[in-house]
């Protein structure tokens, strides 16, 4: 694993994309085929099944180091990463070895076959033969979340450099439901017939947020507008009589949304649709209804009845078995309309409507009414644009509504993780109910690093009480909290839950007494919930 550790160190030491990609390309050119395959898997979010719980890892690390568990638990939030805490907490290896990445992955996969004492001795033995960096990576393999500054996109670029293959082709090959168990490096990357996998999706085209006025986009006639839905972006693939539903995060969601199975009754095979999965009761329901479906691998009948989903389609990527992404959007859209014309009301497919508008000013007015349509703003798409892959500027824009805001008082603070370890970045906010402060949301983004440093120094000096890692602080600072939606939630003490809450402004000008109240929050719930 020394060569993989060296790769990690080079990636970790650089903030420059070109350096990271070059290091990875070099690794791809020299590593064994099985290590290459696993590296591709890891950087595309595939990892070995977790064989050991984090609780056991902490206990074993403390025991191996000869320190009490509480000392480990205190060090963890300060280091901010479990794999790193373990790597640093343990004494140095007694005898370093050099086995490959695949060896360690196979060893970890074998752990699920053996009992706990055997797991423990295998993990302790591994810790004792790896240096700190390798130990960190080994722990990352166990705990998952292999995020070390290489996105799938950068990995694909490095692979393209190492193999001389086209980056877009590789991106397509790497999508889909493969795992290192059921393929080889050769079959995945080099073999001639990549189309064998009928489930393979196209890379999604993602829009940037529109920050300038729409007038900067040029003539309104060149553009098409749709509502921007607050659902789950999905790609529905109908090939060979089967259907596959993919999320934007490249997760296969076919079983989560069984309603979409009936799509094969309405649309011919050789069709790939891009659209939004929405909970639907004759009109789009709130995201809150859809939320109940997220994260459920099997869906109980009651939920299928209470929050049924449809695909609200807005683009056509494959038509009659042919990839049509290079065609202009207007042409793809016309074909899409042809496909979905005259479907019955119970079909799980619908056409997301295009909005007529006479000019940018009219569109501005339309955008203001997005919340009434259960939408979060508008999408603007250039009529002659091809379907690109990834986030690209120019042809597609999302023009979201301004968020809702409320002024709230910070009452609890907690340290962040990873890059933000040792800074207080996770806060709980409250509004007034009479003389009492009622917590209603957490937020952890929106401030600059300098502001986080400033609030961190303040928290250290103004802690009233500690509850484990959480500090209760003097109610003194008011923040403007921005959010995208609000709905009822019996699980929260305040009775409401916010969507995408973040700190939009530190209201240093505002005394605590002037923060908003629970009545204000309830009024927002009545208006927008």
């Amino acid at each position, binding site marked *: 694993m020394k060569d993989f550790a060296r790769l990690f160190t080079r990636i970790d030491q650089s903030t420059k994309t070109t350096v990271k990609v070059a290091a990875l390309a070099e690794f791809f050119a020299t590593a064994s085929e099985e290590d290459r395959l696993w590296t591709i898997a890891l950087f595309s979010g595939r990892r070995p099944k977790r064989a050991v719980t984090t609780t056991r890892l902490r206990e074993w690390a403390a025991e191996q*180091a000869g320190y009490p568990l509480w*000392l480990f638990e205190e060090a963890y939030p300060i280091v901010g990463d479990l794999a790193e805490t373990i790597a640093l907490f343990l004494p140095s290896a007694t005898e370093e070895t050099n086995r490959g990445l695949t060896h360690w992955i196979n060893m970890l996969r074998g752990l699920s076959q053996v009992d706990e004492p055997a797991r423990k001795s295998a993990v302790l033995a591994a810790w004792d033969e790896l240096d700190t960096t390798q130990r960190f990576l080994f722990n990352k393999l166990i705990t998952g979340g292999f995020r070390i500054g290489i996105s799938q996109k950068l990995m694909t670029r490095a692979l393209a450099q190492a193999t001389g293959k086209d980056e877009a082709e590789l991106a397509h090959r790497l999508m889909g439901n493969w795992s290192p168990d059921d393929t080889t490096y050769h079959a995945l990357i080099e073999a001639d017939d990549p189309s064998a996998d009928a489930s393979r999706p196209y890379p999604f085209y993602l829009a940037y947020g529109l920050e300038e006025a729409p007038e900067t986009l040029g003539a309104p006639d060149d553009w098409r507008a749709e509502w921007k839905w607050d659902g789950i972006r999905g790609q529905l693939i109908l090939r060979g009589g089967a259907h596959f539903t993919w999320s934007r995060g490249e997760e296969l969601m076919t079983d989560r949304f069984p309603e979409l199975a009936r799509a094969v009754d309405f649309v011919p095979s050789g069709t790939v649709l891009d659209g939004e999965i929405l909970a639907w009761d004759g009109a789009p329901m709130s995201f809150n209804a859809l939320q109940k479906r997220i994260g459920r691998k099997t869906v109980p009948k009651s939920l299928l009845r209470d929050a049924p989903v449809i695909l609200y389609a807005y683009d056509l990527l494959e038509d009659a078995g042919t990839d049509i992404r290079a065609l202009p959007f207007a042409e793809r859209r016309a074909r899409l309309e042809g496909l979905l014309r005259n479907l019955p009301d119970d079909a799980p497919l619908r056409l997301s409507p295009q909005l007529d508008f006479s000019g940018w000013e009219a569109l501005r007015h339309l955008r203001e009414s997005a919340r009434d349509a259960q939408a979060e703003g508008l999408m603007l798409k250039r009529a002659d644009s091809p379907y690109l892959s990834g986030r690209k500027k120019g042809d597609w824009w999302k023009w979201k509504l301004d968020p809702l805001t409320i002024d709230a008082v910070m009452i609890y603070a907690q340290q962040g993780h990873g*890059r933000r370890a040792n800074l207080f970045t996770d806060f709980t906010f409250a509004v007034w109910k009479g003389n009492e402060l009622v917590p209603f949301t957490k937020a952890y983004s929106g401030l600059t690093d300098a502001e986080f440093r400033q609030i961190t120094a303040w928290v250290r000096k103004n802690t009233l009480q500690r509850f484990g890692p959480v500090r209760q602080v003097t109610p003194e600072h008011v923040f403007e909290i921005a959010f995208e939606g609000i709905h009822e939630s019996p699980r929260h003490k305040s009775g409401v839950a916010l969507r995408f809450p973040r700190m939009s402004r530190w209201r240093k000008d505002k005394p605590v007494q002037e923060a908003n109240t629970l009545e204000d929050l309830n009024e927002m719930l009545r208006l927008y919930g």
Partner: protein
Amino acid sequence: MARDPILTFTDKGIYCPAGDFFIDPWRPVDRALITHGHADHARPGHARYLATDLAAPVMRHRLGDICLETIGYGEKLNLGSALVSFHPAGHVPGSAQIRVEVAGEVWVASGDYKLEDDGLSTPFEPVRCHSFITESTFGLPVFRWQAQKDVRAQINDWWRASIADGKTPLLGAYALGKAQRLLRLLDPEIGPILTHGAVENTNAVLRTQGIDLPDTVLVTAETKIADHPGALVLATPSAFGTPWARKFGAVSTGFASGWMQLRGVRRRRAADRGFVISDHADWEGLNAAIRGTRAENIYVTHGYMDIFTRWLNSQGLNAQVIPTEFEGETLDEAEA
């Protein structure tokens, strides 16, 4: 019969009633005993100062025309009914632990210290005492320093690699102590060493008191990097990203600090390289120093006070937390 404590903890800092003096006070007082010249220990505004003869030149340089008495390591001085002496702390040149004895009871305020001999500061000496005041900047088992020779190799390798890559290595370190320690680790065979003014001023002071440092070139308005092929630039971290740093063209940035042990901190600093090298004791060092004093009472300040205190108590010592005004600054202090 309970006696008054030899040292007490006041809102101005550590105070000795028997000798009527303060140690490293943070508000102006009549008489201040100073452990070392770093800005958070040697503050301006006191009427009288007492420090080691080795610390004096830097303090005069930084604080100007102060009323400063000096004392050698191990020399004894009576102040009121207290007997005072200074002992090497190994933190930076001239740094001291201050021993205070009253009627046979001994307390030691250790300031900042490290056990490893950095080849620059007088090495740390354990002082037996009844009560010991210790810092805890790196009081967690995750902080374990590598041997200095390993870090030396990393830094010199980075210097060579940066030059080969067509970049100027820009190394950030605190001006007093860390910068000179790095100077002694750098290999002058690789190329010339350029310095920022804040570093060079301290170099000059230390050179006049006989501390041997390699040759350095002060960066001035006229300096052109092209005239110094293969050069490394040593600067305070505050100079990074300023117009001053622009004249070096493409740079590879490095920081040298104990905090570089943590990946999160390295990434937040957004430096190209982090070198783990500290003038504070690591976890093993803190524990070894405390054992060496054979003190029963430990007062813990500066750093992970709560955690380290709990650890010491679990080891059968009588430890307690002494809050300072500076808790909020610890993590991002470059001098660590």
